[in-house]
């Protein structure tokens, strides 16, 4: 079984990620295994929340300061910019866009997820720091929507990422998205939004699901 897996992986491994030999400055041979050498191969740990008032206070702060990763995955991303226009003004709820996953807490999957986008979405999600939240936008993320039998999109997002809030509609209007943010805030304040830890706990299951449809992973299992 394991042998088979290796062959499988090899087939999709990008050329630059294959093991190779480079010549060092003194003429010595250096064996490079890109997947192990370039990437951290550790697995994430569960980051336990504090208990009591402290956690409540921090959760309040987290809820009031939602930094969204500016990452449009599908057609729904067209609905996000109006959120920050004067009409909807998501800023007043503490929502802001951040350009880098390192600094963001919220990943919005805006609509259908093609397989290749899923890979990027997962990588970006993994690069976000705990605690982190996922908002799924539109029917496509719930059951595939109009793409339910497409060969190239996923049907249920929560098989791949722990979703905190679904916002139904095709597409949901910005008002609905704002409502989704409100819902997320409620969950965070209640302490329910522990998707990040959930993802770590059930990592094997998530990874198995992810690998089922993404063959050319080209990276260690967890993308730090």
């Amino acid at each position, binding site marked *: 079984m394991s042998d088979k897996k290796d062959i499988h992986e090899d087939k999709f491994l990008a050329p*630059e990620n294959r093991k190779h030999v480079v010549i*060092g400055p003194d003429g010595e041979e250096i064996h*490079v295994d890109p997947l192990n*050498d*370039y990437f*951290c191969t550790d697995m994430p740990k569960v980051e336990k929340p504090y208990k009591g008032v402290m956690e409540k206070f921090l959760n309040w702060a987290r809820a009031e300061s939602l930094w969204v990763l500016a990452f449009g995955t599908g057609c729904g991303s067209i609905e996000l910019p109006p959120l920050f226009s004067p009409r909807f003004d998501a800023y007043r709820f503490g929502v802001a866009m951040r350009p880098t996953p390192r600094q963001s807490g919220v990943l919005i999957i805006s609509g259908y997820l093609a397989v290749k986008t899923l890979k*990027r979405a997962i*990588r970006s999600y993994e690069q976000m720091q705990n605690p982190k939240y996922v908002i799924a936008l539109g029917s496509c993320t719930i059951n595939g929507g109009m793409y339910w039998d497409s060969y190239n999109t996923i049907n249920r997002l929560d098989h791949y990422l722990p979703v905190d809030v679904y916002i139904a509609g095709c597409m949901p209007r910005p008002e609905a998205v704002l409502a989704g943010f409100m819902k997320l805030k409620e969950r965070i304040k209640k302490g329910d939004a522990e998707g990040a830890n959930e993802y770590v706990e059930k990592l094997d299951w998530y990874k198995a699901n992810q690998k089922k449809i993404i063959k050319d992973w*080209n*990276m260690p299992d967890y993308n730090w």
Partner: protein
Amino acid sequence: MVNPIYIVAVLLGTAFLLGLFRKKGTGIIALVALAFPVFVSASWFFHFLSGNTEVLNFFTAGAKPPFSINLQLGIEEALFTMVINVLGFLGYTYLYRDFKEQGIKSTVLFLILIMGLNVLIMSRDIFNLFVFLEIVSIAIAGLIYLKRGADTAIAGFKYLIALGVISTFLLIGIAFFYLFSGTLNIDDFLNSNLPAVKGMSMAVFLILMAILLELKPFPANGWALDVYQAAHPGISAMISSGTATASIFLLYKLLPLSSIDWLPYISIIGAITFIGSNLLGIAQKDSNRLLGYSSVGQIGLMLIIIGMAPQLGEHFNLIFLTVFISHFLAKAGLFWISGIIKKDNIRQWSVLRKNKLLLFMFGFFLLTLLGFPPFPSFYGKWQLIMELAHGSQFIWLALILAGSFFEGMYLIRWFGFAMKEKDESEEKLTIHWEKMIPPVIFTVFVMGASYFANNSSDYGHTLNLIPIYFVIALFLLDFLPAFVKNSLVIASMIIYSILLYPDISDDTLRLVFAGIFMIGGVLTLFAGYSVKGKREGFFPFVVMMYAGLIGLIEAENLFQFFFAWEIMTLGSYFLILRGKKSIKHAFNYMLFSLGGAYLIFIGFALSYFGQDSLDLSIISATTLPGWTYTLLAIGFLTKTAAIGLHIWLPGAHAEAESDVSPMVSGILLKAGAFGLILLFLLMGAEQSEQHSLLYILGWLGAITAVGGNLLAVFQEDAKRLLAYSSVGNLGYILFALAFMTNVGWLTAITYSINHFLFKTLLFLAIGGVVMRVKTHNMYEMGGLIKKMPWSFIAVLIGIITLAGIPPLAGYGGKWLFYNAVLTKGWYFQGALIFFSGTIAFLYAFKLIYSVFLGQPKDKFRNVKEAPIWYLIPQFILMIGIMVFSARPDLILKPIGTMLSQSNYFPTDPLNWEDVTATTNLGYWSGYKIMIVIGVMFVVLLGWLMIMSRKAQKIKQFNIVYAGERPFTPGTTHFSHNMFSNYYKAIGFLSWPVATGFWNGVNLFTHNVADNIRRIYSGNGQTYIVHIMIYTIVIYLLMF
């Protein structure tokens, strides 16, 4: 004592008798025969030297003139016959094998040649001179064909035809001389006091002209050059050293015949020859022909000296003899070496590297020709230039140095080829031992001559020659392993510093620079321990350089200073030349150094004008302040690489070896700064009248700072970047010195110390890195912090100091700068300086980021930390920086006291209250700043460490990449052309204007040389035309 007539007898007799012998044994007999004259003339020479002054006159056939020939042997004749006989003996030894192959004929010719030369020197009969001149010519014409071939044949033909025409002139001259004077004896003529007749002067003109033409004056010398090129080098050596010597003496002997003062014309002819042939040498690629040009040039120089004799007075002997003996020994030596390696193109002389001794001798002779100290002609040239200046012959002085510069140009280039050009020849260098003897002996003679020149020079005794002896000792000890020699050098430098300390402890300025030179020297030498093997030819030059540097500190008179300056230049040139790709850069370095040194030379000479001592203080009393100071300043600026004169620096510093770069960049450049300091002090410091010069220098410093730093920004080569940074930093120092205020000078000294500390540190650290990764290109490195953490710390400390960020010492410099700028009122220059200070951030960041941060590359995964011997000096320097940052008062206070208490800079000093420095404008307390920042930094660090103690360590590709992963480390490391946007904005300021200018100058010189030398069309008839036109022109000039 043996009568010298036996020289003739023995040589002639042997030549005749040789025919009786079979081939076997002829060589030995000839050698013995040639040894005899050496013995005779040497015994006479020492006889005269030991106090006997009575000149020996002797006659052939026991009768008096005119029925016999009158020969004379005084000390001069004895000396010249001696050198010629030595040359003859060694020349024969050298050619022994060739003669053996050729049979007796060549040996006979050789004996005749030596005999002829002897008689030429001793004879006092004009017709006799003609006869022997012809004999010598015939002998040489025969010997030329020792090397068979069409080239040789045509060269010999041209030679004979030309000499035939010349001897016709001579004979006509002699005929009319006899007609008008009735005697052919020089002495008779001189005693007879005949009235001057028009025809007589014409006759003498023809005679002297013929002798002059024999000396191959430019441009009527094509025939001679062809001979040099075509003949066997052993014969060329005889022509160049032997016949030229005799002809020069002949000229000297016959000059009194003329009633007209020939001397100015001889000088002019000499000058044209000296400059002309040295200029043409620049375009020459054939080694023997090049030696020919050089030979002709040197004769030109001797002609100048002869022509200048009245101005030179009592110094004539020293000047002439040193220049003569240098040329004599070196040229013969070089021709001999040329004959050993048998390569025509100067590029192919790289084959010399196969034999260390040959290479050594080659360099030795070249330097002898160039007149570097401690070689004899250095003393001669020094004395010559000084005397010329004393007699206000400034144009001559400039002409001589211009010619010397041209000569330097091709000789140094040649040496560079020998040292560094790729050696493509496969075959082994076959060396016959007897061919090695003569050059070796001449090398020893050069050393002896240097010793005597030093002793007979007026100022030679003031020199401290201990370092020179040490250099020689190191040459002899070169077989030892490197670490032994390294320890030896370090120990000697430490001991020397300790011995030196009491002498200069009362002069704080000198003490600071001595500290930079010596401490820096020891520290950079530590790095040398990491080199395994013998490291041949490194340590003598290191010592030479440091000897020069310390000599500058010790110098009390101009001579010592210039001597030390040249020694330092020489040592550093050899060090730079050791680098891998340094051939071009070392050449540039030497060329600029030579030019700069000559400017300094002229400056010294000008200040000597109208004065009697050579003390350094005469510069302040110079009667030509404008010229003197400007020339000296430009001379020193070539060493500090002010913009426009900087193009040699980046290459020279970047391509040098890892541990040489810090020496030349961190330490050597301070020599220029020290020179400027000395100059400015002598200009009268604060009272200096040279406002416009200082103002220009101030602007120059500011522009240099901007230019150097800006150029550094756009470099991809780490060492080149640092080198350009040095240009910029030396600009700061120049700028600060030009203030001529107390604080300005403190700034300059602070900068000197800072630059020494951080640039040595950076060059050592980067040198260590380069040593490990084996590339200079920063974009190829990256992420080395994990492999070389200590080097990283060193670079970090270095760039913080460089950028002038508090709390490190660099900030002190900036603060002083502001105060100085505001006090002096040079606001706009100051703004430029501060602008360049911020530019420094760009390259400082690029340096540390591209090398140590960013993406680690695969091929540097296994590199280790730099050798411990690189790290030790780095740590010492870091400690130095820290101490100087925290307690700047330890150094600046005494300097400030000295500057303000002396008469130099009494006004507006820096005040010290405990550890706080104050001026009228502001205040600065390095110690307290250090504490505040240190405490704060530690507190914040602790806080953050508590806050993020659990941080997960991740690897190089765990970066956010828009949901993707980086491709390879190479494509992810952002380093190449890092500041492209900056280039787009103000890159036009970094256009290589100076490089273009100097390239243009170089191209122009080459083109001029290349076009002029086309007068040597190769056609023998053209050469005859040259001779005739030349004669006519000289005639028209004279009458």
